[in-house]
Each structure stands twice: as C-alpha cells, then as structure tokens.
C-alpha cells in the first residue's frame, strides 16, 4: 500500500473524536456519566440501546424518520428524472429561467418556511404524517436531484438516444430500459444526496409532526428537555442515527467523488 500523508489521518481522527465520545457515552450508565470522567465505559452497559429498541416512543421515531426519508428520496428522484432529461436534451420556452428558479429554492432558509408550511399541511390535512415531511423536503431535494441528474445526463451522448429510436424503441421504453441503466451512477448519487439532506434536516420535520409521525431526532430533543438529563439514552439514540448514513455512504463510496466532480451538489 502506498504511503498516506499525515494530514488526512489527523483530520479523520479529529472527525472521529466527537463521534467516539457519543458512542462512549451511549455505553455508560447515567451514574457513570454524571459521576466520573472516563475515556471509556467503566461499567459497560447496553441498557440504553435495550430501552430504545423496546420503547415504542423511541423505535417508532426511528421508523418514522426512515419512512419519510425513503418516501422523499423516491419522490424527488422519480420526478427529477424526466425533468433532468428535458433540461439536458431539449430547448423549450423558459427553460433557463425555470432551472434557475428551481435552484433558488435550495436557497430558501427552512426557518422562513416553517410556519407557512405548518399552516399549509394542516390545511390539506397531512399534518403529522410522514408524507407531509416527505413532500416538504421536496422543496430543496428536487432542485438538487434535477441539478445532479442533469449533469450526469449531459455526459451521455445524444446519439445514444437516437440509436435507440432508430432501433425502434418508443420513448419510455428507451428511457427505462436503456437510459436509466446508463446513468445508474448518477441516480445513485442523486439518491445519496436526497437521502442525506432529508435525513439530516430537522426544523421542517419537527414542525410538520406532533405524535404519530415524530422523527427520531425530534424524539431526542423532547426527551432531553422533558425527562431531564438522560444523556446515555440520548447518546445511544444519536449513535443509532449515524448508522443509516454510514451505511449509505459505504454503498455509494465509489460514486461520491464522481458526483461531486460534476460540481453538482
């Protein structure tokens, strides 16, 4: 193996320290956390995790989060695919303005929209459902997905489309059978980013839910404020929220650099 410079290693260590500390805390008892300072658990316990996996207020939060994130990823990427194709292949009235308008929505501070969103989704009776959060996250995830996918699609020569039409493929059959597999890497990258931004966002997710669809992260903040300092439990829940992300990164690791390379984030 080639030698690796010290800088990235130090940087990664710096990144891992707070994470380690969180994991460390999650295996400690509340007494140990509050009583002593220790670099690793003196009385190793999985009680915090057991609590999360047995208490429905905890684990349903986990499911709720995964539900709306999954929904949002599917919606965002599915509707972004034909749109990105249109932007990469066709010239049409208002195309450039439309593209820019889409991107401006990536710039809208969620804090600005929190209250109107609450009212809007209450009005259409979607409040406190995963679908509400999934749709709300479309605000910034669709523009993002369109942007990323358009970059990948522009890298596919137009001649591929023409060859397929000449072969006799009707448009949709070509799009699904030929085109989508060709830009599979791009779809992977778009899914990754949609997942990421939906998973990490909390302000809107919290605003649009109360009980039934409460995300795990929101459960955490409420626990922290109502049940006093249950730090171990909080740390365990936090640790668990890192896992899906780590999982997703692992799957798309080879595409990340490429996705970024297109300058489309």
């Amino acid at each position: 193996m080639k030698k690796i410079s010290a800088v990235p290693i130090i940087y990664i260590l710096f990144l891992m320290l707070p994470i380690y500390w969180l994991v460390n805390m999650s295996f400690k008892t509340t007494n140990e956390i509050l009583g002593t300072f220790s670099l690793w658990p003196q009385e190793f316990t999985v009680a915090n995790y057991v609590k999360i996996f047995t208490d429905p207020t905890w684990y349903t939060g986990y499911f709720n989060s995964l539900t709306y994130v999954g929904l949002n990823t599917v919606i965002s990427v599915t509707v972004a695919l034909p749109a990105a194709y249109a932007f990469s292949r066709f010239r049409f009235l208002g195309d450039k303005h439309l593209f820019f308008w889409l991107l401006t929505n990536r710039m809208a501070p969620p804090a600005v929209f929190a209250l109107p969103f609450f009212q809007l989704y209450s009005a259409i009776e979607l409040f406190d459902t995963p679908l509400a959060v999934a749709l709300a996250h479309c605000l910034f995830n669709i523009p993002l997905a369109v942007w990323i996918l358009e970059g990948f699609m522009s890298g596919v020569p137009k001649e591929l489309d023409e060859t397929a039409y000449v072969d006799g493929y009707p448009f949709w059959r070509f799009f699904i059978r030929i085109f989508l597999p060709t830009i599979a890497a791009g779809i992977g990258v778009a899914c990754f980013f949609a997942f990421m931004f939906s998973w990490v966002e909390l302000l809107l997710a919290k605003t649009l839910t109360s009980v039934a669809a409460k995300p795990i992260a929101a459960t955490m903040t409420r626990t922290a404020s109502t049940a006093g300092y249950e730090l171990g439990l909080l740390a365990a829940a936090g640790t668990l929220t890192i896992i899906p992300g780590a999982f997703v990164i692992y799957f798309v690791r080879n595409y990340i650099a490429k996705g970024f390379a297109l300058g489309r984030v």
Partner: protein
Amino acid sequence: MDNKTTHQKAWFFVLPVVVLVAFNAIIPLMTVVNYSVQETFGDNVFFWEGVKWFEDVLNSDRFHASLLRQLMFTGIILAIEVPLGVAIALTMPKKGPWVSVCLVFMAMPLLIPWNVVGAMWNIFALPDIGLLGHAINGMGIEYNFTRQPFAAWFTTVLMDVWHWTSLVVLLAYAGLRSIPEDYYQAAKIDGAKPWAVFLHIQLPKLKRVLTIAILLRFMDSFMIYTEPFVLTGGGPGNSTTFLSIDLVKVALGQFDLGPAAAMSLIYFLIVLLVCWVFYTLMMKNEDQ
C-alpha cells in the same frame, strides 16, 4: 454548437417537478408575503399595514445584531473551511484503497442529523464530562460554553468546521482529480515549484468547484439553525443567536407573525441577492 433540439412538449417532463416545488415554494411564500403586510390579533382578523413591518425590522437593533452575528459567523467559517478543505484535499492520496477509506470517513459528519450534531457537540464540549471541555479545562484554561460567549462562539465555529469542512474537501478533491496528469508532467518539465503548480494549475482548475463550495457554505451557514440551537440555545444571552434562531424566536416564540414574515422576506432576499451576485460573477468568469 448547442445540439439541443427545440421541443415544447418538454414542459410535460418538467411539469411534476414544477407542481411539487411550486406547491412547496409559492404557497408558503405567498403566505409569508401576506403576513408581512398585515397585522393580526388572532381570530384570523387581519389589518393592512403596508411596509410598516419591513421598516420596523430594518430599523430594529435586534435584527441588526443578529444579522451582524450571522455575517461574522459566515465570514469566519468560510475563512477557515475553504482553505482548510483545499489543504486537506491536496494531501489526500490520489488512488488506492486509502481513497475509499478517506472518503467514507470524511463524509460521515455530513450524514448525521443536525440536531444530533448539536447534541453530540454539547456532550463533547461539556466542561465537566465532555472530552473537549475536560481537556481544555485540564490545560488550565477556563472554558464553559454555556456561560462564556467567547467559548460558545469557539465551540459553535469548531462544530461547524467539524461538520462541513468535509464538503469542501470532497468538492476540492473531485476538482483536483479531474486535472489531467499531463498538466503535472508539463509543469515538472517546465521546472515549476510546488507553489507555482498550486497557483497556476490546481487553483485555476479548482475555481469552479470552489465557487460552488463557497456558495453552498455561504447559503447553508446563513441558514444555520438546528446545530447552534441544540448546542447553545442561542446563548449565553443572545451571543449565538443567528438570524434563523432569532426568526424562529420571533415567529413561534412570540407569535409576532407580521414582523417575523417581514424578517423572513428580508432574510430570503439577502440570501438570494448574494447568491445571484455570485452566480453572475461565476457565469461571467466562465464566459471569458
């Protein structure tokens, strides 16, 4: 030659996107605009107020203070994260198994829910039981981010650096990887020193990705809410109350809908304006 074909039916392709985004963007935006020019005392009774709220917000010391804090924060984190990110990207291996290892570990902070980031740093920096707080105090420096404004700022900035530098690293790394090997060889042959290679080859080729990195970091840091809110709650005092935190306090805490809406719009316009200026500069640069 632009080889796109003109095809108005393409609108059908973008229609679902337009509908979904417009639903989320235009209706709430209209609501905000609506509130921003009216006064309510509850019961859905509204009175026309014109631009009063805008004048109030623009003249309020409180808004000025949080805007100033916001600008300082964004300035500081940009000044740290961009050069640091580029420096780290430059030292990353170009190929081999380490690349994946680096990428996976570096991307991790990006995928942690923002309130977990706040909570994590809260635990990490607590003066008594947090590793960071404990270590700093152990060095004889008094440190408590819940009491000292400076410590709170330091922790918030450090947290943001921890959270987002990787984004700059990944972007810069991807930009560097797209430079053909020939350029490095040519520079070697021309006898260029490493600094000249950076200045004349790497930096110019990174310009585009760095513009995007700066733009993104500007936007996201300008909108930052969850992490500092969970970490410091905007305190101590108002010392880390950034624009978004202030806005939510006004809107949901005090339920002052009019001023909050006016503030939202001013806020949104600032972000848009800066991005637009940036975008135009970028495009102009590319045309040259």
